């Protein structure tokens, strides 16, 4: 167990997560029949928690990565990954209902799926299967009704900051499509809050600058942000 702690930097997570991770890693490193079921359970717990807790959903990708690596290394398995992805797919299919029921859950879901896209690579490449779904989520966030909610705009720009460049490499055309919506929203949509406008302007500049902010832009947007 001590080796595992070092290998996977478990201490960097909070206590609850540490417990969860230890369960999963224990099940992986000392395999027996029940462990298949345990990994499925673990993946379900992670997904459920990600949908409830926004802070967790930002970290969940890294947690999943840790477990996927462990399983692949110890017994060539991918029970965890498979179950995680299929759960994600279910949530994706039901995303519109989720959004109507709870904006927070919807935002958590988008954060989570983008996080998974960021961390879970396949032979060092992003998962192709997730590209369209992620774009679909972001395109949804770029719709007029969503742009009116600061919560959703915030989520949108955050995800684009984190994975925008990777997404664009996978499908430039879709990214163009998304940014047309953002530009139009910024220029034409009435009733947008000034914060929403600011966020949109920043992300437009960010992408235009090659997914980075020039020094001047950095000063413009973040000069009043405390370090």
């Amino acid at each position, binding site marked *: 167990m001590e080796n595992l702690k070092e290998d996977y930097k478990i201490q960097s997570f909070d206590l*609850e997560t540490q417990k*969860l991770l230890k369960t999963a890693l224990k099940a992986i490193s000392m*395999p*027996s029949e029940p462990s298949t079921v345990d990994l499925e359970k673990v993946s379900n717990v992670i997904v459920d928690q990600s949908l409830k807790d926004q802070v967790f959903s930002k970290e969940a990708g890294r947690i999943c990565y840790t477990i996927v690596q462990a399983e692949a290394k110890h017994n060539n398995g991918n029970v965890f990954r498979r179950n995680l992805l299929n759960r994600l797919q279910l949530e994706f299919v039901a995303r519109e209902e989720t959004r109507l029921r709870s904006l927070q859950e919807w935002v958590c879901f988008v954060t989570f799926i983008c996080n998974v896209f960021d961390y879970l690579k*396949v*032979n060092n490449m992003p*998962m192709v*299967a997730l590209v369209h779904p992620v774009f679909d989520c972001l395109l949804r966030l770029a719709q007029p009704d969503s742009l009116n909610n600061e919560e959703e705009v915030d989520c949108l720009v955050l995800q684009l900051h984190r994975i925008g460049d990777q997404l664009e490499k996978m499908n430039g055309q879709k990214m163009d499509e998304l940014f047309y919506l953002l530009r139009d929203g910024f220029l034409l949509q009435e009733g947008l809050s000034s914060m929403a406008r600011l966020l949109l302007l920043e992300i437009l500049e960010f992408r235009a600058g090659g997914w980075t902010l020039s020094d001047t832009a950095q000063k413009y947007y973040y000069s009043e942000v405390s370090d």
Partner: protein
Amino acid sequence: MSFRQKSRLTDAEYNGDENRNRGPSRWSNCRKRGADGSMRSNGDLDSTGTSDLKKSNVNHRPVSFTTPESEGPVPRCADWGSEVETDERRSSVRRDMQRRRILTADFGPRERKNSSGSSESRDSPVPGEVMEEDEEVLMRRQKQITYGKNTLAYDRYIKEVPKHLRQPGVHPKTPNKFKKYSRRSWDQQIKLWKVKIHAWDPPALEGSELQAIEEVDLDDVMDIELDFPELDSDSSAQPLKVSKASSSQPDSSQGTPSKMMKIDASVDLDMA
């Protein structure tokens, strides 16, 4: 006879008595041919009633009534888990092919130092030998190999016997997916390979182990030219298994106790 009666009942369930004469069943909308193979016009009633089933015997279909050939197998399930697995397999196969090409190029001009015959290739490509290049075939083979390696038994095997200590014939060797083999030959190699790996199954599973060995029909294997030793009958396979199982006893020190261990269920409560 009984089949038709059963189908009659099923049809009644599907259509319901009230629907019987209303028109095409819900499945017939998209079909451009009736069950006898002839083209339907748009307004045709496609009766999926009992009379159809009697005619649906495959032998009566005209030759034209076959599924047109497509580019190849389309994955039946569109779930992300499988999709990602397939993608991973594809990129692994392509990477392996690239490596193989590089190795072949490397060995081309020089004489091979490995003095053993070409059948004992140890994965190094023989220059001039034709490789299996069909991606579909390689993917299928890789999938079979991955399934075989995804087992506790294989895990224990590679931990117990490092590659350089493997004895040909005694220790199972992964079939080389790049070599040209017939489909049947390849499938048999995989089957045999997996059977041999079972010798390293964890001790607690001995009951099911026996079952696995007995289910394999080893008589089929006799005419295939392989590196593996001839297996005459079921009985000769058993001593092999027993000796390996007993030699792995020392490893079981962490086997039995961990299987008895219950995974902490308190996680659920805490996370709720």
